[in-house]
């Protein structure tokens, strides 16, 4: 039973990790992208729709990622070029995406809340050659769909790109000190645009995973604030890819437990679902506490209402 929970933790954490990877790129580029849910829901819908019409999962995933990146481009357009406040743009894009997908769900499929069909192909689970032979590990890590493995493999890729490439350095400098980056000749807006597009790409994968692999259906607002949990993980880990992944896994475990635990102990699922948010607030408090103490030591006054 315990292994079952770990197995589903890996599964449940996958969209969180994908979305968190997307979110942390924008975080590192100095943008607080709260539209992760919006990107995901659009991808989830496009994935299901294209899988239904084309019958091909590859086409569906490509379309899902494309749709998500299109929305990311819209967000970048408004935030970076039209200078809309990122928070407002993010909120608007998210709810726009919720509304648009619900509207199209009705317009294309004639459904109010949920669409599923036998015509949608499903992913086959992969038995990982080496791991499948090991007793405990096989029950946890083997037998997932391909997107799960892609998600976990993308973590080191993103970490490498961020910390070991020129592009990653530029991205981080743009986040830390945009003026310095601009002085050094970095195209700040261009880098931000790229980060936002990549955010769309990762969230697109997350959305496609949700509607095609995690379940095979689309329901309105089916992301259930996973983007927010991913954002919480990013904030907790302060944008470090590996740490973010670990935190996302922990949050995924809390979610997995909240599904199974009530049957075992009778503990309310709400309390477990609250964990990611509460933990993140506490982490923010701890960071604030530290920096405030440091500031007080140096007697610096700092209250930026910005």
């Amino acid at each position, binding site marked *: 039973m315990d292994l079952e929970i770990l197995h589903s933790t890996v599964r449940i954490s996958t969209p969180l990790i994908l979305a968190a990877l997307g979110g942390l790129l924008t975080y590192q580029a100095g943008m607080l992208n709260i539209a992760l849910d919006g990107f995901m829901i659009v991808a989830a819908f496009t994935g299901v729709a294209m899988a239904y019409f084309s019958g091909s999962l590859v086409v569906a995933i490509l379309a899902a990622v494309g749709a998500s990146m299109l929305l990311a481009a819209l967000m970048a357009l408004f935030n970076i070029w039209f200078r809309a406040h990122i928070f407002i743009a993010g909120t*608007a*894009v998210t709810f726009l995406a919720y509304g648009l997908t619900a509207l199209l769900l009705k317009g294309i499929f004639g459904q109010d809340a949920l669409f599923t069909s036998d015509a949608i192909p499903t992913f086959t689970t992969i038995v990982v050659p080496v791991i499948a032979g090991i007793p405990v590990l096989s029950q946890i890590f083997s037998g997932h769909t391909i997107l799960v493995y892609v998600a976990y493999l993308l973590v080191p890729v993103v970490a490498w790109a961020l910390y070991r490439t020129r592009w990653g350095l530029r991205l981080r400098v743009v986040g830390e000190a945009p003026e310095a980056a601009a002085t050094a000749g970095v195209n700040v807006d261009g880098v931000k645009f790229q980060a936002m597009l990549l955010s769309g790409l990762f969230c697109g994968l997350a959305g496609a995973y949700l509607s095609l692999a995690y379940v095979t259906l689309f329901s309105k607002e089916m992301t259930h604030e996973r983007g927010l949990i991913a954002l919480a993980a990013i904030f907790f880990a302060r944008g470090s890819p590996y740490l973010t992944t670990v935190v996302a896994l922990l949050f995924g475990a809390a979610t997995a437990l909240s599904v199974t635990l009530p049957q075992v102990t009778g503990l309310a699922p709400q309390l477990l679902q609250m964990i990611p948010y509460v933990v993140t607030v506490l982490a923010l408090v701890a960071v604030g506490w530290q920096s405030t103490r440091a500031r007080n030591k140096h007697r610096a006054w700092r209250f930026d209402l910005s």
Partner: protein
Amino acid sequence: MSAEAPGALASRRGLLDWLAPAIQPTIALVISAIVGGLLVLAMGQDPLQIYGVLISGSLVGVPNLMVTLQMTTPLLFTGLAVSIAFRAGLWNIGVEGQLLVGAFFAGLVGWLAPLPTFLHVPLTLIAAMAGGALWAAIPAFLRIKLNVNELVVCLMLNPIALLLTGFFAIHVFKAPGPTNKLPDVLETAILPQFSLFSQANWGVFIALGCCAIFTVVNNATIRGFEWKIMGLNPTFAYYGGIDVPRRALWAMLISGAVAGLGGAEEVMGVYGAFFDNFSPGYGFDGIAVAMLANFNPIGVVAAAGLFGALDSGGAVLQMTTGSSKYLVEVLQFLTVLILAARFSWEWLRAGGRGQPTRRAVGVINEPEPHPTAEEA
């Protein structure tokens, strides 16, 4: 800032200047209506017919008007709440959570306190305000004492509020029966409804009263002036002798209290009990309303009315034609997105009169600190 200019200057200005605050929202609305129309067209329906149903379904006939009024009322509270905090330079996007906590407190006091009406209604309202303010106090204190970004805290507190009130409504104080709700509010704490057509109730007068109060506060009191200066330039406000942290705290608390009142209105007037997860996102719609209103209390009345009309028209649309009420959500948030953009507003204004002023919406477009700036 023409919306809040003192009356002495107003006499010298023309009608066009008077209407200036409405120009941006109108342009944004028209653009999003066109985009929405194209969307409807793409789905094989007649946009004119759809918009016709939206308008007639919200504004024609007393029943429809009553539904519009019902939909408008919570948006008045949440839109005003967002506006109050924003004018003081704070982003209160935790209005959703504050509304839920306020509603929960109202549900508790309304159910538990056996009092005569003239005491019970005010007490329940006060409890709701306290609940909303309590929930707003968390980001406010963290902001002021520890300089933690209130945006992120608010964002996290929304689901916490939903889950926590849900926990109490399902596991602690659950009313007998299948629905996840608190027991019904006592008769003495009910805000009477106007008609049988909808759940529009006396709460709308509380909302309008709040808007009136804050119009006066913003334009005729020292506090309102201080908040405005803080919103425009907190550093200037500080060196001008304004106690910025304390004013910010109070702006946030009052904003939360108003949001809590919105929750009370829903519990005491619309539902008659606190239901788990009752809010369809009034808090987020409030952000949209506040943006559309340019953070002006009178504008909030107009913007909330518009959004309420769209919502009630959307419900009719869903019932009578085959299309989805979510068209309305698309229209609403497309408008917000366009409004948030700073792209040709200055140019439009300059083209009109050649005197581009820094509008409130422009202020929020200042480059923001990096999310990890707290470490510095």
